[in-house]
Structure formats: structure tokens, C-alpha cells
């Protein structure tokens, strides 16, 4: 066991898999440049020293090429891990992800598969609208793509390993404030959780959520940064006699529906806390699912706490009103109980 930040855990996963399987490669901007920073958030730092510049391929600013190459190479025998520097740039590769990666196997009648990973840092961090979006929902809606979001170091290594070993396209959403990147790439206001990570081989299965905190009065489903805010809110709620159960789904597609269902049947109340925009966010799907399958167990209407339906703003005071805060979680929970 070693204490690691999420960036370190991701790096450990990539390194381990690249050693284990010669077909694993990385493609992205600034990921292997000698003397560089190992990708915008240091995740690939040092990997090109060990694996060279063909398996750690620095690309031009060319998102469609990054995605398309990962897809084509995956079909032809490699297991590529591609990444965008900011999640917002996924829009630049939308055709490749949604029309090619997601559909190739289906269109081929099952004769090919696309075992690739696309990693994307998301979350509002004072950089303005085009470098701040949480965009899981754009991809949870595409049949043929899997979507995961690890929020701890243990999950980061385990989920990324599982994603690399999965024979299908997997989007891995990481939060900029959770990486724990150091040195010149330290994020202002970062949470940087550090956790124990086993050195040996393990995976966190795709499609398996986890209960971060057990409780009987209210189920809170949250991902990435919001998990931490929900846990902090849960502590404060406990002081007021409300025991919240906090669930981190870890995978959004395929969703661990059974875990959430069991919790909602127990507590009767569901609050979803998400950093993406409210309307048609990933929380809306969970709300609809639970309204359908947990209807008779509900003791209160299902609530979603999300960013409002506006582009992410810049100024700190505006951003703080955009990203759901601990105080808002507490207030919403109190009103529900």
C-alpha cells in the first residue's frame, strides 16, 4: 500500500498496464515531451522515459485525430489511452467518439471491437466557460460508450485499469481539483485527496458503485468533487440528527442501479448532487429511474442539486454560485427531511 494522489494513482495504472501489455499506448498533447509536464495535470509525467515516444505519442492540437487514431488503432490491435487536456475539448472530437467509436462494433455486426480509453479532466477551476464544463451527460446518452468517474486514488487506479482492460470505448472523467498535481501544475483551491493504493494488481469493476457513508434518512448520490462536498454536508447533517447515505456511483454507464435502488428503498429520499448543468444532466436519468422503480418507497420528491443552466462563469464569486456548495447541499437535504 502506498499513499498516492489521484494523478499518481492514474499514472501508476498506466505504467503498470503498459508494462503488462505491449499493446497499451498513450496519445495526447504534451504527454511525453522531454522536460514537459506529463500532460496538463501531470498524469503521464515520466512515462515517456520508460516507454519512449512512440508508445507515449505527443500529438499536435488535433482532437479529431487523437480520437480517431485511438479508435482506428484500437480496432487494429492496440489498446490506446487517449486524452484531452480539458474535457471541454471533447466537443472537438464528437464525431469520432459518437459516430465512430460508439457505433463501429455495431455497424460491423460484431466483427470488430474498439478497446480504447479517452481520459478527460473536468470541473470548474476559475479558467472560464470553455475550460470548465462537466460533460458526462453528453456521453452517457451515447449507446456504445461506457462512462466512469473515479473520485479517490484507490478508485482511480482500479477504474482506469479496468477501463484499459475493457474491450470497449470507455470515457474516464477526472476532476481537476482532485488530481493533487504538484509543483508548477498545482491547482489553486484543489482538494487533492490522498489515499492508500495497493501496489499489486487490482481493478475496480466498471458498473460498480460504492456507499461512501451509510445512513438511513436520505440517499445522496454524487460524483467526483461533489462526493467530498456531500460527505462534508453529511457530517453537518448528522449533527442535526439526519443521517445521510452518500453513494458514489463511480460508473455512470453502466449504472449500478441496484445499489442506488436498495438505498432509496431504505431511506425513501433521494438527492442527487452533480456539477453538470441541471437540465438533462446525468442526475436526471437517475431521478427518472428511481421515480420509476422506487416509486412506492419514496417519502419525498426526488431532488437534484446541479449547476444552473448557464455556461460556467469565471469570477470566483460567480463560480461559487455555479458549482453546488456544501451549504446548498445541507439546505436542500434539510428541506427534504
Amino acid at each position, binding site marked *: 500500500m502506498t499513499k498516492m494522489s489521484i494523478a499518481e494513482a492514474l499514472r501508476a495504472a498506466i505504467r503498470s498496464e503498459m508494462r503488462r501489455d505491449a499493446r497499451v499506448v498513450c496519445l495526447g498533447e504534451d504527454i511525453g515531451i522531454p522536460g514537459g509536464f506529463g500532460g496538463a495535470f501531470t498524469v503521464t509525467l515520466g512515462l515517456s522515459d520508460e516507454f519512449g515516444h512512440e508508445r507515449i505519442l505527443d500529438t499536435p492540437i488535433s482532437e479529431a*485525430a487523437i480520437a*480517431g487514431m485511438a479508435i482506428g*488503432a484500437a480496432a487494429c490491435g492496440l489498446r490506446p489511452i487517449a486524452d484531452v487536456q480539458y474535457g471541454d475539448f471533447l466537443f472537438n472530437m464528437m464525431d469520432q467518439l459518437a459516430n465512430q467509436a460508439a457505433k463501429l462494433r455495431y455497424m460491423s455486426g460484431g*466483427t470488430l471491437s474498439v478497446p480504447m480509453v479517452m481520459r478527460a479532466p473536468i470541473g470548474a477551476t476559475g479558467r472560464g466557460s470553455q475550460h470548465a464544463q462537466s460533460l458526462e451527460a453528453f456521453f452517457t446518452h451515447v449507446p*456504445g460508450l461506457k462512462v466512469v468517474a473515479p473520485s479517490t486514488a484507490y478508485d482511480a487506479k482500479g477504474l482506469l485499469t479496468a477501463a484499459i482492460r475493457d474491450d470497449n470505448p470507455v470515457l474516464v472523467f477526472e476532476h481537476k481539483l482532485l488530481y493533487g498535481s504538484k509543483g508548477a501544475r498545482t491547482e489553486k483551491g484543489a482538494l487533492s485527496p490522498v489515499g492508500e493504493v495497493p501496489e499489486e494488481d487490482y481493478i475496480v469493476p466498471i458498473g460498480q458503485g460504492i456507499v461512501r457513508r451509510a445512513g438511513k434518512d436520505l440517499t445522496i448520490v454524487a460524483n467526483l468533487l461533489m462526493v467530498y462536498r456531500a460527505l462534508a454536508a453529511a457530517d453537518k447533517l448528522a449533527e442535526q440528527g439526519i443521517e445521510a447515505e452518500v453513494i458514489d456511483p463511480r460508473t455512470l454507464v453502466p449504472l449500478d442501479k441496484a445499489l442506488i435502488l436498495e438505498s432509496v428503498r431504505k431511506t425513501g429520499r433521494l438527492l442527487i448532487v452533480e456539477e453538470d448543468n441541471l437540465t438533462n444532466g446525468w442526475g436526471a436519468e437517475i431521478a427518472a429511474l428511481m421515480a420509476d422503480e422506487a416509486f412506492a418507497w419514496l417519502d419525498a420528491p426526488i431532488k437534484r442539486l446541479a449547476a444552473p443552466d448557464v455556461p460556467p462563469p469565471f469570477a470566483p464569486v460567480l463560480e461559487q454560485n455555479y458549482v453546488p456548495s456544501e451549504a446548498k447541499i445541507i439546505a436542500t437535504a434539510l428541506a427534504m427531511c
Partner: protein
Amino acid sequence: MAEMTLPAGTVPPAPSPMLTPPAGPLPERDGLLRLYREMLLIRQFEEIVNELYLQGKIPSTLHLYIGQEAVAAGVCGALQPADWVLSTHRPHGHALAKGVSPGGIMAELFGKATGTCKAKGGSMHVGDFTLGMFPAIAIVGGNLPLAAGAGYASKILKDGKVTAVFFGEGAVNEGAWHEGVNACAIWDLPVVLVCENNLYAASTPVSQAIKTATVAERAHGYGIPGLTIDGNDVLAVYQATREAAERARRGAGPTLIECLTYRQCGHSRSDPRTYRAKEEEAAWKLRDPIDTYGAWLRQTQPGAEAALAAIQTEVTATIQAAIEFAETSPLPDPASIYEDVFKE
């Protein structure tokens, strides 16, 4: 050929100073006859598919390859069986030339369970990955980054494969085309970029879409070689592809081959072609690739007449068998929509 006035901007059929003269070794006699057989198969397959469509047996529109056969036959003839091929929304010719089963293609067009894509793809996505052909990509330009990926995989795996990617002259203005070509160039990926310039992207003449006289000259912007050839001369196509594939295989990087050709049919089945001059169509018909190649074979190959007749018989039988296969194949089970989304 008679002098005629063609609409402004029309690229004359041939000869033209911009065309690179063909060079390099030609196939042996068997190979020469093989090229003819592929072209004839494509032509007659497309003609019959057109008729079947009019009879209501094919539940979708079609993008027919009639007139462009020399490109598919020449390129695929010059590749090795394990090489990768990526195609477009007009893929029937590429698929047949790559060796995809005519029965499988026909069944796919009919929407039957035995189709190349298990009836999940349709006309625009035919292919056979087990033979090296990706399911065709119907997003114009979208197959270029995929081709770069296939080339990159070959480089890492050192499997000696070459990737040939087909696209029309309309694709060269897509961002993805630019990104894909650039990627092939900067890493010297083993890719042959085959541009089928049939002068019209749907109804838009090429001169309206690019400012240069040829597509090939764009290659210089990427630092790779580019050449414009007579796309209706199957041997020219064969020779250019042979050379480009050799280059790619020895690690010297991609080549852009612009094949000037002409589709004798509309863009799709719902295209009455009123945007092209009848004179232009007639001029190109005189340069029909199968007619001209057949004539050349009769002139240069002894016993060609009998051989060509035998080929015709075989092609007729093959297509007939394909139709029967498609007609007798079962429809897919409606529940199969859930299959093959993910690999379990």
C-alpha cells in the same frame, strides 16, 4: 475524341498536363485479367442492385459506384490481402475489390441477417473486418483519423500492413480530413491516401470547393508526395498504388493519390443529375474504364476474347448466386437490436 465545349471549371477527361504518367511494373497476365474481372463484377453488381432497388427489394437509398471501377480495382489489386482498407458512403466497389463476399453485400443491402453487418449497417457501412475492410464510414472525412490509427497500430505492432483510405474530393475540406492527413504525415504512417475526385461532391463542382486546380497539390502543404492520375486507367491506378504501398511499407510515410474519375450515376438514387451537362457525361462515357481496358486487353493479350467471355460468364453466375443468397436469407430477429453494442 471530338472537340466540345464543356462547362467552365470542368476538368477535361484526358489527357491533361496535370496527370502524372503511369510508371512501375504491371501485373502478370492473371493479374491483368483479375483487374478486369473486378471491374466487371463491380459494374454489373451495381447495375443489378440499381434494378433491384427499382423493384423495391432494397429498403434504402444507394450510392452507386458506376464509372469509378478502375480506382477500386486498381488500388485493391495493388494491395496485399492483409492490408487495411477504409471506405466511404459509396463503398460497394471497394468492398467487392477487397474480396468481400458479393452475397454478403447483397444480403446486407436487402437487410437480411446474413449481411456483412448483420443488417445493422446497410449500404453505407458494408465491409468485412475479417478481410481487412472496416465497415465503411459514412461521415465524410471521418475515416481519415481512423486510417491514421490503423497506420499507427501497424507501426507499433510492426505487422508490415499498409492502410488504404478512400475518400472523395469533397472530404478534403473536412477538419477531420486535415487532422488525419497531418497525423499520417508527421509520423510517417504507412497509409495510402486515395482521393476519388469524381468532380462533384453531391451536386457541388470541385472548383467551387477548393481554390487549387487539383487536390494533390495540397499534399505539399503536409510535406508528403501527392500526384494526380487518370482514375479511369486501371493500370495507372495500380502502378501508383503499388509504388505508394511500397513507400509506406518501408516506413517512408503516406502518399496522396488523386484519381480523376467520373460517376456515371447520380450521387445517390434520388439524384437526377441536372447539375451536370449532358455533354460532359457523354464525354466521360467515351472514357469508360471497362471499355477502354477491355479494348487494351484485346489488343495486347493473346486469347483475351475467350478469357473475357469466361470472365463475363463467371461474373454473371457470381452475381446471380449473390441475389439468390440474399433473397433466401432470413430477416434478422428484431431482438437482435440489442446485440453487438459492447463486447462482453
